């Protein structure tokens, strides 16, 4: 009976879990293993799930803990980032102020840029902007205050937008932003 409820509550979130796992681990085989381990752990811990609470957030928390405990050390060194290089929003000299160039990029280019984000920024961006989890659930999942979720998300978007823009400029999709003439 418990497994039937588990199936009903947990299985609809497999796509979310797989996508998050893929972004955390960086490769499909590891993501598949991580999702399977997560589901096994979740099934065995199902009695601790509070009915009516957010099953997706609960599962993502388990997945992330599994990743931290067993996977993070094996995969991915954090990517260094020069915080001063993060572009400030918004720039009136932007030749593409509506961000039309985003549509010209292919999925793999976008996802590679996401994967290259430092882990603490990548996590909040994936959970919030790609999977639509509420800030409060992200805060619980990551064990950080809601304010930190928001500030990391803001930074993550700026870093990612900056990198996508640089890529778009280097491939000729858009012109570089012109600096104002010095007076």
């Amino acid at each position, binding site marked *: 009976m418990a497994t039937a409820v588990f199936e009903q509550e947990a299985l609809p979130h497999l796509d979310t879990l797989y996508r998050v796992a893929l972004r955390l681990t960086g490769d499909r085989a590891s993501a598949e293993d991580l999702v399977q381990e997560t589901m096994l752990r979740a099934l065995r811990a199902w009695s601790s799930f509070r009915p009516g609470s957010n099953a997706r957030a609960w599962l993502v928390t388990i997945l992330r803990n599994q990743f931290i405990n067993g996977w993070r050390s094996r995969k991915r060194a954090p990517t260094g980032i020069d915080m001063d290089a993060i572009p400030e929003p918004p720039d009136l000299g932007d030749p593409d102020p*509506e961000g039309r160039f985003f549509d010209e990029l292919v999925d793999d280019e976008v996802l590679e840029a996401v994967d290259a984000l430092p882990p603490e920024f990548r996590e909040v961006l994936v959970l919030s902007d790609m999977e639509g989890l509420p800030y409060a659930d992200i805060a619980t999942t990551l064990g950080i205050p809601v304010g930190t979720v928001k500030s990391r998300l803001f930074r993550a978007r700026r870093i990612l937008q900056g990198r996508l823009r640089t890529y778009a400029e280097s491939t000729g999709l858009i012109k570089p932003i012109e600096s104002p003439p010095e007076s």
Partner: protein
Amino acid sequence: MMLPPDCEAAIDQLDALRRGELADTALRSLYEHLEACRRCAAFKVHEEAFLERLIQATRSCTCPDEVRATIYQMIAKESRDN
């Protein structure tokens, strides 16, 4: 680059707007600001294009059937064993 405080507040509120979490008064105030401020209006459009692209990039990615099958088998086995 420092933004004026009302622009900073407007940019802070855009997420709440997207999530449908903005109260009526704040909503009106934000729209008034966006009508008057070209910079923030452009930022809103730019941010929406970016977020839409992020969602598109990931939606085609789904859990493989083999993984689903393995998980179903695992659940069935746990059910039998308990």
